[in-house]
């Protein structure tokens, strides 16, 4: 279970913070989605959105699973770097399409993810991206780190 991604400056009511933590726990521990791939997608999304606070932090579940910082350092070159397998590339391509314009997500990009992680995985990744996107936008809009 990671520390909450909600900026403490928001001072959320405890019961709301708990519900948010419960959702995060389900996301990272309960979907069957590879936490390293999910963290790479989260970091790529944060980069595209220019969210420094989300770029510098790491989710403990991914670290515990063996997240490699040398791989993280090459994340911007994921389409060609040998550090990324086909499953990870499919998820990162979907992530980029989601961030740039969700209307631009096409059947091929979505199917590539589905082929690697199944429909439950595609749902988990999409929900995760929506959640991560929201956190980045909250941080950027309120200028909280």
């Amino acid at each position, binding site marked *: 279970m990671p520390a909450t991604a909600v900026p403490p400056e928001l001072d959320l009511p405890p*019961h*709301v913070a708990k*519900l*948010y933590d*419960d*959702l995060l*726990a*389900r*996301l990272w521990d*309960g*979907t069957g989605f590879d936490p390293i791939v999910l963290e790479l997608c989260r970091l790529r999304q944060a980069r595209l959105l220019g969210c420094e606070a989300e770029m510098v932090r790491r989710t403990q579940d991914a670290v515990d699973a063996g997240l490699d910082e040398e791989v993280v350092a090459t994340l911007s070159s994921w389409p060609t770097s040998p550090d990324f397998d086909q499953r990870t590339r499919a998820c990162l391509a979907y992530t980029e399409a989601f961030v740039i314009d*969700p*209307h631009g997500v*096409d*059947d091929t990009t*979505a*199917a590539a993810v*589905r082929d690697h992680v199944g*429909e*439950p995985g*595609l*749902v*988990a990744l999409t*929900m995760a991206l929506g959640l991560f996107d929201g956190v980045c936008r909250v941080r950027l809009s309120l200028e909280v780190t």
Partner: protein
Amino acid sequence: MSTSPRVGSAVADQPANFGTALAHQPELAKAFGTLYATLWTQGAVDQPLKELVRLRNARVTDCGY
């Protein structure tokens, strides 16, 4: 834009939609629903204003669903 859902329904005899697609991850869906309901029904912003914000958000992102 696809003309058909990219994720099928996880609920027997029901068409694919936001809820039945989320049902592929039932525990995640439950946690999301609980948080969403709490944000919707509680807090400093009244519900009519939240609805206006939600609708404007949908309009700006061109989410016809």
